């Protein structure tokens, strides 16, 4: 396995308060990893620390062998790391076209048209809503738009915070399928999901977090089978039909 991202003894948080403590893991290139844990376990904080929008206290983050924990988010994005935060993270008063154009912010302008064309082929619904303000799209369409806004940079590491939150079951399935398709092209994915069951089904690895620390890590199938995990996060007895 080729290690894409390595996190070593990371401590990070907000202001003076560390949330994630002494966290270590490594992600294989092209793998999908799900972060599981209750509210306040530090899942979103971990994603933000990897993208660089919160304070880093100690430890190291290595991306393709390079130390990145001191870099600004813009610099990390230029190195292929993209982060889609939780919930309505777009520019609501701007059109779909302008939102995608802003997605291209870190790219040279000669690439813009082709990259936007490519994500529109992936999500044709965006082309249909081209001139509509992002704020007027449905929740699912906004989620797709936000994912598209980072995909135009063709990231190599995709950090997704609750990509299926508030979506209909059908749209959730579409989002999971899209994530799988993206990972199949060699993109490494680290995802936080409220739909733990659905996320585990598409993941290679699962990491369970509690109170900012790593509680368990293993192949997704194994974590899914763990009695404690089924009890705490999968609602006890899940039917194996999906």
């Amino acid at each position, binding site marked *: 396995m080729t290690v894409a991202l390595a996190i070593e003894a990371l401590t990070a948080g907000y202001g003076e308060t560390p949330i994630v403590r002494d966290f270590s893991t490594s992600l294989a290139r092209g793998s999908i990893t799900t972060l599981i844990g209750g509210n306040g376990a530090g899942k979103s904080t971990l994603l933000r620390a990897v993208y660089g929008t919160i304070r880093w206290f100690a430890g190291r983050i290595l991306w393709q062998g390079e130390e990145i924990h001191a870099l600004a988010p813009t610099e990390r994005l230029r190195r292929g790391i*993209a982060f889609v935060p939780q919930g309505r993270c777009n520019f609501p008063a701007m059109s779909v076209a302008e939102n995608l154009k*802003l997605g291209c912010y870190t790219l040279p302008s000669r690439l813009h048209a082709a990259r936007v064309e490519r994500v529109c082929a992936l999500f044709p619904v965006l082309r249909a809503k081209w001139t509509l303000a992002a704020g007027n799209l449905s929740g699912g369409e906004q989620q797709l738009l936000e994912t598209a806004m980072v995909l135009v940079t063709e990231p190599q590491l995709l950090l997704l915070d609750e990509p299926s939150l508030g979506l209909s079951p059908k749209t959730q399935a579409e989002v999971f399928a899209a994530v799988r398709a993206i990972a199949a092209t060699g993109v490494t994915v680290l995802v936080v999901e409220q739909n733990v069951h659905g996320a585990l089904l598409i993941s290679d690895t699962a990491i369970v977090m509690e109170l900012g620390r790593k509680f368990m890590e293993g192949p997704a199938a194994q974590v899914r089978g763990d009695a404690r995990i089924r009890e705490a996060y999968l609602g006890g007895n899940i039917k194996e039909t999906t």
Partner: protein
Amino acid sequence: MNLDTTYLTELLLNGLMVGLLYALVAAGLALVFGVLHIINFAHGELMMIGGFVMALVLPALGLSYWPSLAVAALATALAGVVLYELFLSRLGPREFERSILVTLGISMVLLYGAQYWFSATPRIVDTQYGFEGLEIGDIRMTWTRVIGGGVAVLAFGGLYATLRWTQFGRAMRAIAQNREAAAMVGIPQHRVARHAVALAAGLCGLAGGALAPIQLVQPAMGQAVIFKAFALVVIGGLGNIPGAVFAAIALGMIESWVGGFFDIVWQETSVFLIMIVAVILRPDGLFQRGGLRVG
């Protein structure tokens, strides 16, 4: 009172011109509010700096208007960069009280600094155009007023085009609408904020420079405008630039008409009375609020 059409038209044109120059200041204030979430109370002093640069540079350049105006705008934009780097960059977007104290303090320091160096005596500023003017029939306007209005219109055209069609303009609107999304697409927020302050300050410098030959240049000239500009930004719907511009032009007209028919005290009073009524009746402003809307 003689209500002839010449007088009315002159009042109208005058009001339009003053309103356009207010609008430059208000648009900059709205821009800074949108991107930094700060009401910059030192904004009027930036206009004052533009006025003084114009007053000092004109004699040195043989009274030539255009180069002096360019120097005034650029020098003020530079002052904006210094203001941002030294002070505004240290204020977070949610530190509203701190931002008021800091910018109000800077405003006072600049005002009294200017009084110390240049004295409070108003200066008359002469240009190559002197008191010559444009005459159409009976209506007469000095060239400096005609040009002042024209410069403001051009500046708005440029501002609109920048916000609407350039990646820098989109980035400013993006930060105003959603900071987290701006970070997601990799917009370097400090750099865009610095450029936004420079742009807003440049507009102020342009307004101050253009006003210098029309009104008198004095250290308190910014104070007279800032509270009006602040009110315009609120009435226009915080962060809504066309709203602020529309409100500013209306204000200029109202001022001019009231000043033309009643005692001068009513000019300022009426303006603030109208503002109080507007804010009480429409708490969110007359136009849709927020997000640096451009159209």
